[in-house]
C-alpha cells in the first residue's frame, strides 16, 4: 500500500507571452495548471465539466474550456488568460465596457465571458445579433440576466472599431512593449 507511482510529463506552454515549463501528472487539467502551478487565478471554475464557460481561455487565439483540456495538450501552444488583458493598470476595452455597462455582478463568470468575447471580436469586429448570441450562448451567468453583458460586448466592439484594432491586436501590442529590452537601450 502507499506505493502508487504516478508518471509525470513535461508541459511547455507560452502563457500570456511568457514561456513556462513544468513537470506534471498527465491528468492535470489546463485550468489547474494555470491556477495552481502558475497562480493565474483569474480563470475560474464553475462546473469542471465543460458547460458553464467560466474557465474559458484562449489557445492560439481560440476560445477553449480549460477545465476539460489537459495541461499537456497545450504543449507547444500559446495560452492567453484574463490576466493578460489590462495593461499597467489600464483596463482593456472589453474590461472597461463590462464596468461601464454593469455587465457583471459577482464577477465570477466575467473572465470567461471576456475571453470568449475577445475571440469573437478578434474574428468579427462588428458581430451580428446572431453571432453574439452564438458566442455568449456558451457561457453561463447566474447573476445578470445577460442583457447587460450583451450591451457590454457591443460597447467594447464599438470602442475597438473606433480605435481600429482587435482585442487581441491590442494585447499583442502591449505584450510586445513589455517584452522589449528594458533599460535605456531604446536608442533614438
Amino acid at each position: 500500500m502507499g506505493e502508487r507511482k504516478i508518471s509525470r510529463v513535461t508541459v511547455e506552454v507560452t502563457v500570456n507571452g511568457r514561456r513556462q515549463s513544468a513537470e506534471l501528472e498527465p491528468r492535470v487539467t489546463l485550468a489547474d495548471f494555470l491556477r495552481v502551478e502558475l497562480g493565474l487565478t483569474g480563470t475560474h471554475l464553475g462546473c469542471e465539466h465543460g458547460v458553464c464557460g467560466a474557465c474559458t481561455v484562449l489557445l492560439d487565439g481560440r476560445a477553449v474550456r480549460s477545465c476539460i483540456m489537459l495541461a499537456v495538450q497545450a504543449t507547444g501552444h500559446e495560452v492567453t488568460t484574463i490576466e493578460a488583458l489590462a495593461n499597467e493598470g489600464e483596463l482593456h476595452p472589453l474590461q472597461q465596457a463590462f464596468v461601464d455597462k454593469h455587465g457583471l455582478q459577482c464577477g465570477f463568470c466575467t473572465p470567461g465571458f471576456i475571453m470568449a468575447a475577445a475571440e469573437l471580436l478578434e474574428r468579427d469586429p462588428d458581430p451580428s445579433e446572431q453571432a453574439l448570441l452564438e458566442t455568449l450562448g456558451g457561457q453561463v451567468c447566474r447573476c445578470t440576466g445577460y442583457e447587460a453583458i450583451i450591451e457590454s460586448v457591443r460597447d467594447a466592439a464599438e470602442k475597438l472599431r473606433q480605435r481600429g484594432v482587435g482585442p487581441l491586436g491590442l494585447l499583442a501590442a502591449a505584450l510586445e512593449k513589455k517584452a522589449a529590452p528594458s533599460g535605456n537601450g531604446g536608442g533614438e
Partner: protein
Amino acid sequence: MSSRIPNSLEELPVSEIRWIGKGVERLEDPSLVTGRTEFIDNVVLPGMLHCAILRSTYAHARIVSIDSSAAEEMEGVYAVITGRDAARLTNPATTAPEGWGAYCLAHEKTRFVGEPMVAVAATSRYLAEDALELIIVEYEELPVVANAQAALAADAALLFEEHGSNVMLQRKFTWGEVDSAFDQADLVVSDDYRWNRLGANPMETFGCVVDWNPADDMLTCRGSFQSQSYMGLARSLVLGLPSNQVRMISHPHGGSFGGKGGFRGVDICALLSKAASGRPVKWIEDRLEYLLAGAGQSWDREYTLQLALKKDGTVTGLRVKLLDDMGGTAEAFGAVSAAKPLAAFTGCYAIQAAEYDLTLVATNKVPQSPYRGMGPPPHNWVLEQTMDKAARELGLDPAEIRRRNYIPADAFPYTIASGNEYDSGNYEAALDALLDMADYQKLCAERDSAQAEGRLLGLGLVNTIEPGVFDWNAYAIVGLESTGVPEGITVAIDVMGRITARLGFSLEGQGQYTLVAQVLADYFAVTPADVSIVYQDSLSAPPHFGPGGSRLGVAITGAALGAAHLLERKLARVAAVLLQCGPDDVELMDGFLRVRAMPEAKMHFAEVAGAMLARSDLLPEDIDPQPQATYVWTAPGRTPADEQGRAKSYLTAANACHLVKVEVDPDTGTVDILGYWLVDDCGTRLNPVTVEGQTMGGIAQGVGAALLEEYVYDESAQPLTSSFMDYLLPSVYEVPRVEKKALTTPSPFTPLGAKGCGEGAMHTTPAAIMCAINDALSPLGLSAREVPASPRRLWKLLHENAD
C-alpha cells in the same frame, strides 16, 4: 448610542446630492474584471491540505462498516475521518424545526444520496480523490421514502426513528373569519399545483479553508460565507467551541442567492484539520457535489389553493394548503422558505381572511436550502394563477380582478391578515403604468386573433410583493423565534482626511461596498473614490449579519448614515472647541463644520479630524479624540410573533407588476417568450443601475424556474440530474429583453426611503410566465399546474389530452 438617520435625501448635510440615486460605477469592478478578486479557491496557506468527500450512494441505508485503512496508508494522506469521529467530537447540526439534524458525516445511517460519509485530507485534491477510491463502505439498504406523499404513509420508513413520524411540522394557521368567508362566497375557485425542486446554483460553489489550531484551540475558517456571523455561531454550537474562539473570514463570493450552504463542509474540514495536527484544510465543493447534495435544492411543494369570491370579483377568503418535502434533515434551514410567505401572504390584495395549512415532511432527498425569494415565489405563483382562474370564471380581465382587490394607495401602512405590515405602495399606479407601457389593449387583440387562428399565444399579467429587510420573527412558526438583525459599520477619518468604512460582510455581487461609499461620499461631500471599504472578520467587525432577505442595501444605508451622524457630532464638539463656540452652534455642511450663525467661520472635517488625531492634548478631557464612530442599525419597530405567527416582520414591501407574452409550440411543448414588460416600485433607488441588475438577474432565475430547472429523483430517491447537462440553467437564448419602468413610493420607515429589492423579479417572473402559458392553453380547456413547465411536461399535457 442612538443616532439620527435621515429619512430623505433632503436631510443630508450637503447642498447637492451627487452620488446617491445615481448609477455610480462600482468600486468592486476593476478587481473583478481583471481576475484579481480573492475568491476562496485562490487561497493557499502554508502546509495546506485538500479535502475530498466520499458520499453515500444510497438514499436510505444503515452503515454496516467502513474500511478506510488503505486510504489512511496512502502516501500524501494526512487524515481520514468518518461519522464515528463526528459523533465523538461534535454535536448534530442545529436545525429549524428543532431536532432534525445530523452529524457532518453520516453516523450509523445515511438519509440521502450524496450525504458525506468519509472525508480525506491529502496534499492535493487529486490525491485525496484517489484515496476515496480505496475506501470500502458496506451498507444495508433501508426502505426509501421517495417523496412527500410517501413520507405520510402509515407504514412509511422513518428518517428519524426518535420522532415516530416523518412529519417535521404540521399546523394550521387561521387569520380572520375564514370559514364564514367561504360559507358566504358567491364563488369558490380552487386548484392543485406542484412546484418541483430547484435551486440557487451560484456560478461559484461553496469553498472553505479551515484550521483548528491545537495550541490555542482557535478555529479559523476562511470561506465563501453568505453570513459569517451566523455561520460562526452555528459552528461554535456544532464543534463545542466558545463563540469567541471561532473566527470566520469571509471571502468575496461568486454569487449565493441563499444557496451557498457549506455547513457540513466547514465542520468536516475542522475535524480533518484537528486530525492533521492543525494543518489548514481546503475544500472546494465541485459542481457535481453541489448538484448532488449541495445547498442548491429548494421548494419541493404540493399546493391546494382556494379563493372565496363575491360576484364582482372581490376576494374575501384565501386558503393555502402546502405539503413541502424538506428532504433528509432540516439542517440547511429550508423550512424558513415555508414560513416566509407569512410576510406577504395575500400578495397585493386586501384579503382579510386567510388560512395556511402547512405540513413539512422528511424524505430521503437532499435537505432543502433557502433560495432567492425564500419561499414566496411558488406561493405567489399559485395565488396569481388562481386569481386568473377566478377571473376566467367571472368573465373578468386579469387586470380588472386584480384592480378590484388591491390594497388602496391610501391604506398604508397596512397590516395584512398574516400579521406583517406593508410600509407603502401604489399598486394601481404600477398596473396602469404597465398596461400603458405595453399597450395592453393591443396585445389582447393580438392574442385574441392569434388564438382564433389556433395559435397557442398567451399573456400573463401578475403583481407581487417583495418583502424586504427580513427579521427572524418572520420564521417564528418554524422555530426561529428571535427578533432583530443587526448591521454595523465603523466610519473613520484618517490624518489625510480620507474616509474608511469597516464592516463585516464580503462581496457577493450586489455592489454593496459601492453603496456604502456613495452614502458616505454624499454625507461628507467627497467622492466615492475618497472612501475605502475594509472588510473585517467575524471577531473584528461591528455586529453584523450580511446579505440575506433583501435587507443589506437598506441595512447598510442605515448603518453608514448612523455612523456618519455620530461622527459628525464628535467632529462638531471638537470644532466648537477650536472655533470657540458651543457644540450645538456647529453643524456639518458640504464637508465643513461651520458655526450656524456665522457660516464663514468654518473648518473642513479633515482639519478637525487631523486636530483630533495629532493634538488630542488641546481637547477637553471628556472628548473622545478618535475621529471614528460605529453605528449598528436594525429595523425599527419589529414585534415578536404571536401564537398564530403574526408579527411585524419584514420592514418593507416593494411591489412589481409584470406582463409576459408567450407562445407554446404544440409540436415540441417549448415556450417562447415573445415580450416582457414590467413596472416596479422599490422606493428610493439608491443605485438605479444595480437595482436594475438585480431585477434582470431575478428575471433570468424566474425563467429558469418556470421553464427549465428541476432536480429529478427516481422512485428510489436516486438523483437523475447530476450535471449542467441535466439541470438546465437559463442562457442568453432563454432570457428575454425586458422593457422596464420604475415608480417610486418611498418607504416611510427606512433610511432615505429605500426598500429591499435584492430578490426582485424572482418573486414575480415564474408566476407571470405560468399565467401566460395558461392563457395560451385556455382555448383548449387545459391548464398547466406543474412547475417547471418543461417541454416534456407541456407536450404530454397537450397530447395526452388531445382528442
